[in-house]
């Protein structure tokens, strides 16, 4: 029985990894912004799968609802709204050596991260002694809710305020001045 489970969880990891990486690479390579947004959805779904595989069910649902259901829709909305959905030429490199430099910098960062992970002993497998230990049962919605509304209450309130400020700010930014009303651009 255990063997089947192992196989299943590896298959889940593999599919999540394929979704995530294929989507991410497509986001930075495709020419059309709408295609990039669709690829971004692929990546977000992959991340949601990875969340479910690590028993973060609630976060997976929120991932789909907030990211795929709202943020990317907002991206697409702005792309269509501004009419910038034309294909771009991405082969041009305006600054000489920019891409090579970026690639080298990113490669060094990733190599550093992986090396750090290999050398370090953060992941000892010992459960946390501080904070709230993770429930073993399926779905830790209850636990997450308790943590958010007790330990992290201040952060929660702060993000709530942040959201309100963001909404007001976005409306002010995107809104036209009353004087421009009659003149279509």
């Amino acid at each position, binding site marked *: 029985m255990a063997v089947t489970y192992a196989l299943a969880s590896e298959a889940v990891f593999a599919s999540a990894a394929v979704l995530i990486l294929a989507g991410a690479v497509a*986001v930075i390579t495709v020419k059309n912004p709408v295609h990039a947004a669709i690829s971004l959805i692929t990546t977000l779904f992959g991340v949601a799968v990875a969340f479910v595989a690590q028993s973060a069910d609630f976060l997976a649902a929120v991932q789909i609802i907030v990211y795929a259901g709202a943020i990317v829709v907002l991206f697409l909305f702005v792309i269509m709204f501004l009419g910038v959905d034309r294909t771009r030429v991405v082969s041009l490199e*305006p600054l000489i050596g920019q891409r090579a430099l970026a690639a080298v910098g990113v490669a060094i960062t990733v190599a550093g991260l992986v090396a750090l992970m290999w050398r370090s002993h953060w992941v000892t497998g010992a459960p*946390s002694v501080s904070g709230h*230990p993770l429930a073993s049962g399926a779905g830790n919605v209850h636990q997450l809710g308790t943590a958010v509304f007790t330990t992290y209450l201040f952060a929660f309130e702060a993000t709530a305020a*942040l959201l309100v400020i963001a909404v007001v700010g976005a409306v002010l930014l995107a809104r036209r001045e009353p004087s421009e009303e009659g003149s279509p651009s």
Partner: protein
Amino acid sequence: MNVPAAWYLVLAALLFAVGAYGLLTRRSALIMFMCLELMLNAVNLTFVTFSRTLSDIAGQASVFFVMVVAAAEVTVGLGIVVSVFRRRSSTSVDDLTELKG
């Protein structure tokens, strides 16, 4: 549950790399925002992985907050993109050179 945490961490590092490379090389403000989302997702994945290995809910709570902040960031960011587009008819960040001395 048998996939070691390291695999997920490497996956997250790769995702972060792709996002960072895109952010450094692409010029459209919209695509740059999407790359930013990729990087945030990579970090989220790391948080969840550590939350599982350390058996601590704090990681998941952090992801929750990252998502909220990401939503706020995109709202304001896209608002800025819209208002810039209105003045300059472009979403390319290279066109924003008015403050050059």
